[in-house]
């Protein structure tokens, strides 16, 4: 590109004031973005990628931060502008969309008003002109019946639709630069695909420059012309996306890429496989050997038959029940020792509710659950506590799954003591052993959770779950919140533990690529029902149900060669599992495709 860049960043250094003085979190970062071009900044948490974008917008608290270097927007130095002039730039020449579509819209104003405000303020349009323009914008982001939705409030929109509204608002002022900070991270994978396509489409039409911030290499490959890889505040590598992916020079780039689970990488393999261990200093990947194992075919440890869980929906003056959320509908499966069964699906498909129902953290409505000799649904309070020794859970968010007021040693030893499995001394010994087992020094026992990183906390949560010697572990999105390299490590740990302790995992996840790597069998859930279940290889290589196919097609694959691919703009939303009172779910038929591979037959 020969034209002048829209945005030119030179030697950007941002520091924050701390107790020990100024601490730089972004150092000497330089890049250009031309109009019509997409630049991605990719990195793990703490890499400074978001701070970079906030520095460009000058949205950091002035007293507590210091921005140095040069940021030129169309030749004008943004760092030299007054705060007032800067307000004219934000939302006008540069727009920003954020990660959380649920909180970035003001809930008390209609979406129409929020968008037209941008137009009346920055473009000086009259109210009627702004209204017409707003409706045109909503149509451009493919919101159905845009005119009639103008006067609706944010809560009346789904997450994906809200992100569209955010994009419409960002684009209303026809910015020259759009900064998108993890805009699809909080969205379901099929919705993420739609939003990525939409951004690409709109960029083609408007010719704006896009700065895309993400941690997801799949998204980078799909959207970015050029990529900046950041590591702890430094831009370690900058270049065309193709080069970064195929000829990455910096060891960290290579490490990051090899840790990314890649859908389709397991073709032809029958059993789970560990992630390659990569040295971030040298970038050399060691393919793990001897990682595969087969499941000994014995009696299932967990049998679930026709599980149904519904939540009443109440409304009106006397909160009468007016309907029900059919969260889990007629779900059946088996799980054997040493086996991983993954439940995959998008938000609201009932996968987490299934896990919680099996543990009776939520009371199921109907069905039968046999777990390690317990008839789970018939258990009284005392027997239920005994059953908890057989099944344990690992949660998604390592920052909220440990009690901040309890030391790590106490947290790991507590279940052991509560179930009177030994003395206090034995509990301490066990806790020390388990911490070492999950890769943490036992000397850290007296520390508190806030002193650990996300990955370490997840290891602690795993150690705690193991303290009762359970046979089944429900891992509810247990690796979803972790950075790629940490995710790979924790997955490997889970596989190690499975191998040595013969654990059965019910692995609940929305991440198809991780699921492909770790599972023996997979069940795809949609609107509370299992639509397809079978051995992993069968489901991934020969998906039968249309929803399974759609889900797999939506996953961004970290391969820049696929960048041209468009899924075709659609604005289909996830359906709601809320049904009116007295709704009878249809009786489903399943068809056996191959041994153990069952597919729900579509409605006749």
């Amino acid at each position, binding site marked *: 590109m020969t034209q002048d860049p829209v945005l030119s960043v030179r030697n950007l250094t941002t520091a924050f004031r701390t107790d020990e003085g100024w601490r730089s979190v972004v150092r000497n970062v330089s890049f250009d973005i031309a109009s019509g071009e997409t630049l991605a900044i990719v990195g793990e948490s703490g890499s400074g990628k978001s701070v970079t974008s906030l520095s460009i917008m000058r949205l950091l608290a002035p007293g507590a931060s210091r921005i140095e270097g040069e940021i030129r927007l169309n030749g004008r130095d943004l760092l030299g502008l007054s705060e007032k002039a800067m307000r004219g730039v934000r939302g006008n020449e540069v727009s920003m969309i954020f990660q959380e579509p649920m909180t970035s819209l003001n809930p008390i104003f209609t979406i129409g008003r929020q968008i037209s405000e941008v137009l009346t303020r920055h473009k000086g349009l009259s109210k009627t002109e702004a209204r017409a323009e707003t409706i045109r914008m909503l149509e451009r982001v493919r919101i159905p019946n845009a005119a009639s939705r103008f006067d609706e409030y944010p809560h009346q929109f789904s997450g994906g639709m809200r992100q569209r509204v955010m994009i419409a608002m960002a684009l209303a002022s026809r910015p020259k630069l759009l900064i998108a900070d993890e805009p699809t991270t909080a969205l379901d994978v099929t919705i993420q695909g739609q939003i990525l396509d939409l951004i690409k489409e709109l960029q083609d039409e408007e010719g704006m420059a896009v700065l895309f911030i993400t941690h997801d290499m799949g998204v980078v490959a799909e959207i970015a012309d050029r990529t900046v890889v950041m590591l702890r505040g430094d831009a370690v590598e900058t270049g065309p996306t193709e080069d970064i992916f195929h000829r990455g020079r910096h060891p960290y780039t290579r490490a990051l890429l090899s840790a990314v689970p890649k859908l389709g990488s397991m073709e032809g393999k029958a059993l789970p496989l560990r992630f390659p261990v990569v040295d971030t200093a040298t970038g050399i990947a060691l393919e793990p050997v001897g990682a595969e194992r087969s499941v000994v075919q014995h009696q299932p440890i967990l049998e679930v038959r026709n599980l149904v869980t519904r939540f009443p929906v109440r409304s009106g003056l006397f909160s009468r029940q007016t309907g029900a959320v059919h969260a889990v509908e007629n779900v059946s499966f088996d799980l054997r020792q040493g086996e991983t069964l993954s439940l995959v699906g998008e938000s609201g498909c009932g996968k987490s509710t299934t896990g919680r129902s099996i543990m009776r953290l939520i009371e199921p409505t109907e069905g039968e659950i046999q777990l390690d000799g317990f008839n789970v649904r018939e258990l009284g309070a005392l027997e239920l506590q005994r059953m908890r020794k057989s099944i344990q859970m690992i949660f998604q968010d390592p920052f909220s799954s440990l*009690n901040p007021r309890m030391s790590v040693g106490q947290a790991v030893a*507590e279940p052991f003591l509560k179930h009177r499995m030994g003395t206090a001394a034995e509990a301490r010994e066990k806790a020390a052993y388990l911490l070492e087992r999950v890769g943490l020094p*036992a000397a850290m026992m*007296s520390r508190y959770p806030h002193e650990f990183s996300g990955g370490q906390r997840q290891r602690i949560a795993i150690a705690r779950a193991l303290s009762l010697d359970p046979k089944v572990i429900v891992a509810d999105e247990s690796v979803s919140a972790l950075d790629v390299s940490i995710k790979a490590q924790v997955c490997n740990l889970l596989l190690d533990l499975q191998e040595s302790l013969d654990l059965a995992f019910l692995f609940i996840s929305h991440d198809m690529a991780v699921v492909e790597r770790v599972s023996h069998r997979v069940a795809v859930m949609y609107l509370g029902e299992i639509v397809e279940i079978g051995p992993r290889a069968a489901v991934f290589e020969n998906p039968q149900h249309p929803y399974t196919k759609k889900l797999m097609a939506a996953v961004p694959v970290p391969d820049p060669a696929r960048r041209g691919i468009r899924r075709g703009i659609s604005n289909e939303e996830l359906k709601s599992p809320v049904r009116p009172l007295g709704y009878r779910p249809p009786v489903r038929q399943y068809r056996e495709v191959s041994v153990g591979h069952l597919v729900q037959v579509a409605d006749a």
Partner: protein
Amino acid sequence: MTVIEQTAGVEPREKSRAWGKLKKSRSALAGLAIILFFTVLAVAAPLLPIPDPVATSWSAIRKAPSAAHWLGTDDLGRDILSRMIWGAQASLMAGIFSVVIAVVIGVPFGMLAGYFGGWVDLVISRITEALLAMPFLIMAIALAAFLGPSLTNAMIAIGLTAMPIFVRLTRGQVLAVKQEDYVEGARSVGLGHVDIMVRYILPNVTAPIIVQATLTVATAIIAEASLSFLGLGQQPPAASWGSMLNVAKNFLSQAPWMAMWPGAAIFLVVIGFNLLGDGLRDALDPREH
């Protein structure tokens, strides 16, 4: 595996850590010093060489501070310094014990309401709201009148009146903490309700309760004053800071010292409790360094 030995003694470390942190906090120590100072004065009142706090003197009515009466005298010629020291007893007790009553009753009810929800919450919350709907003082006066005039009854009345605030506060905090994964995690390892409430919820809801408690100490001291004014608290002629303040307000322009000293004392005690409360809150939080 040599590190295992070092890990013995996880339990004692937590307490010593909290103490160590409290000792390092200068403001908390200052708060503690203020409270100790007044407490010692109050306890030592009978031993100190000070005039009788109830002895009136028609020749020394509303005298400004002097060598004979360091802090001056009141409208009946009683020595203010002496009344201040004797009054510290009543005021500190009113402040502390009513708050203890309010916390000891209010927090458990708030925990129950927030934790169990449903009809338990419904009953507790409705009663709390009904109690809160009544003005604080009217409520305290009604209760104190019902219980009969004495300092003890005044403290009980103030405590019960302040209690609904703690129910509400605790309930709200519990509702927030209950959402955290670690509470569900505690259920999933088989812990019972009591364990979860005591070990998982209570430690995570204490911070705002401590702050509220220190602020309520001030309210309680003032409330005791109002009750004494109506003859429902400390019985005259015995002194309390609040009752002194109450009388003093009639002579604000003629004898400002009458209001100044009890006012300053209440201010200091409240500051003291506040500083100590803040320090305590931070010391108990492992996240603070």
